[in-house]
C-alpha cells in the first residue's frame, strides 16, 4: 500500500512517534522521525518525502514552519493533533486533512495512501466534507 514511499513523521512524544513509524513501516514505507521543529525543517529541506504526518504542538512550538516548507516543496501532508483550531488549520493549507489524536490507524493509512498516490484531488489532501 505504501511500499517504498518515504514518510516524514513530526511528533514530539517519542512513544507516539514510534507507533507512527511502526504503522508506516509495517505498510512497507520508510520513515524519518523528527521530534522537534528544527530537525524536522532540516529533514524537510534535505529529503524528498512522499507525504508527512505533522503533530501541531511540538513542546510549545507550532509545526507551522515545517508545514510551510513542505507546502513550498509541494509535499502533501496531514495533521495529527489533539489541540488545534482544526478548521482554520485545514483552510490555511488548502484543505489539508486534520486527524484528531489519537488517530485511527486504518484511517491514517488510508489518508496516507491517498496523499502519496495523489488521489486526493488536490496537492494537500481531500477537501473537508
Amino acid at each position, binding site marked *: 500500500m505504501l511500499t517504498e514511499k518515504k514518510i516524514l513523521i513530526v511528533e514530539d512524544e517519542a512513544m507516539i512517534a514510534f507507533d507512527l513509524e511502526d504503522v508506516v513501516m509495517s505498510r512497507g514505507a520508510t520513515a524519518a522521525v523528527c521530534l522537534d521543529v528544527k530537525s524536522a525543517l532540516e529533514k524537510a529541506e534535505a529529503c524528498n518525502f512522499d507525504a508527512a504526518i505533522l503533530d501541531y504542538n511540538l513542546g*510549545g512550538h507550532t509545526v507551522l514552519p515545517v508545514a510551510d516548507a513542505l507546502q513550498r516543496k509541494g509535499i502533501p501532508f496531514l495533521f495529527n493533533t489533539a489541540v488545534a483550531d482544526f478548521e482554520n488549520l485545514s483552510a490555511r493549507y488548502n484543505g489539508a486533512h486534520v486527524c484528531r489524536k489519537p488517530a485511527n490507524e486504518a484511517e491514517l493509512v488510508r489518508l496516507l495512501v491517498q496523499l502519496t498516490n495523489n488521489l486526493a484531488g488536490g496537492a494537500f489532501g481531500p477537501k473537508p466534507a
Partner: protein
Amino acid sequence: MTKRFSVLNTLLIVSLVAFLTCVLTIVLAARAEARFRDQASQAFDVMQVLDGIIVNSLNAETGQRGYFLTGDEDYLDPYRVGMRDVVGHIDTFREMAGDEITPAQAEKLARLDTATRVKVGELQSSMQLFQDGKISAALDLVRTDAGKAAMDEIRETAGLLIAEEQALLTAGRNEAQRARVLVLLCVTLLVFVSMFGFVLALRNLGRAQKLGLVEEQARQLGEERERTDLLARELNHRVKNLFAIVQSIISSTSRQETDARVAATKIRERVFALSRAHALTSSIDMQQQTTLSELVQAIVASQVKDHCDLHMDGPPVTVMAQHVTPIGMILHELTTNALKYGAGSCDGGLINVTWTINKDDPGQELKISWQEICAKDVDLSAPGPDGFGSRMMAISLTQLRGRSERRWAEDGLNMGILLPLDDHGALKDRNKAETQ
C-alpha cells in the same frame, strides 16, 4: 457616587466659606483692637488735659488765696503756673478735639472756655487790686462769688467732657471685648473645621485602603482563576496525550506480537509502567515534576523485587512531566529485558543503577549507568532488547536529546545512558533548548 461627590463638594465649600469668614473676622477684630488702643490712648490724653484745666484753675485760685491771706510770695508760684497752664490746656484740648468735635462737645468747650476766661479774669483783677494795695477791693471781688461760680462751671463742664470720654472708652472697650469673643469663637470654629477635615481625610484614607484591599483580593482571585484555567488546560492536554500514548503502546505492541496473550501481557506491563511513572507527577496539586530516583523506584524496584537485588544511588535529578514517559519507557524496557534474560533471570542477580552528573563544558550531563551482575555463568549470546525495544528506546532517547552505550561484560549487561541537563540540573527541554 455622584451624590457622594456633591455632598463632599458642599462640605468643601461650606468649610471654605467658614474659613474665609473666620479670617475676615479675626482681621476686623485685630483692627478694632488697634482702634480701641488708639482711642483709649487719645481719651486718656484728653482726660489728662481736662483734668489739667481743673487742677490748674484750682492751683491758681489756691495760690492766690494763700498769698492774700499770708502775703507770702511763695504762694505766687502755683498761682503763676496755674494761670499760664490753664489757658494752654484749653488750647491743647481744642487742638486735640480738632474737626472731630461733636456739637455737644463744642458747646461744652465754649462753656469751659468762657468759664476759664471768667475765672482767669477774676483772678487777674483781684490780684491786680491786691498788688495795688487795694486789699479790701480785692477781697470784695473775691467775695462776689463770680470766681466760685466760674470754678463750679469749669468743674462741671470739664467733668462732663471727662465723663463723655470715659463713656466712649467704655464703649470701645466693650466693642474690643466683643471682638475678642468673636475671635475666640472663630478660632474654635476653625479648630472644629480642621478636626472635621482631618477625620474626613482619615476616613477617606481608610476607605481607599479598604478599596485597595478589595482590588487586591479581586486580582488574587483573577490570578487564581487563571491558574486554575491553565491547570485545566494542562490537564486536558495531558489526558489527551496519555490516551494517545496508551493507544500507541497498544497498537505498536499488538503489531509486534503475533500471540495475542503475549501482546496483552506486554501491553499491560507497559501501560502499568506508564501509569506508575505518571502517578508521580499527577498528584492533586498538579505537581509538574518528579525525580529520577522516584522513577527508578516506581518502575524498576517494583518489578524486580522478587527476582533480584537492586542497588541505586545518585544525586537528586529533577524530571519534568514531559520527560516522564520516555525515561519511564526506557527504564521499563531495560527492566523487562533484565527479568527475561539478565540479572533478573539468574540466581543472586543484582541490578546496579547509579547516576552521576558530569559538569563538563558547555553544559551538565547526566550519566545513568545500568549494570547487571549475575553471580553465575552468563549466556553471552543472550539477546538484548529485541528490535522493537531497541527502536523504542532509541526514539525515546532522541526525545531526551540523549545517547547510549551498550556492552556485554563477563557478568552481564553494562548500559550507559547520557542525557544533557539544563542549568538547574533538570533534564533539558528539547524544544526550549532549540529557541535559545
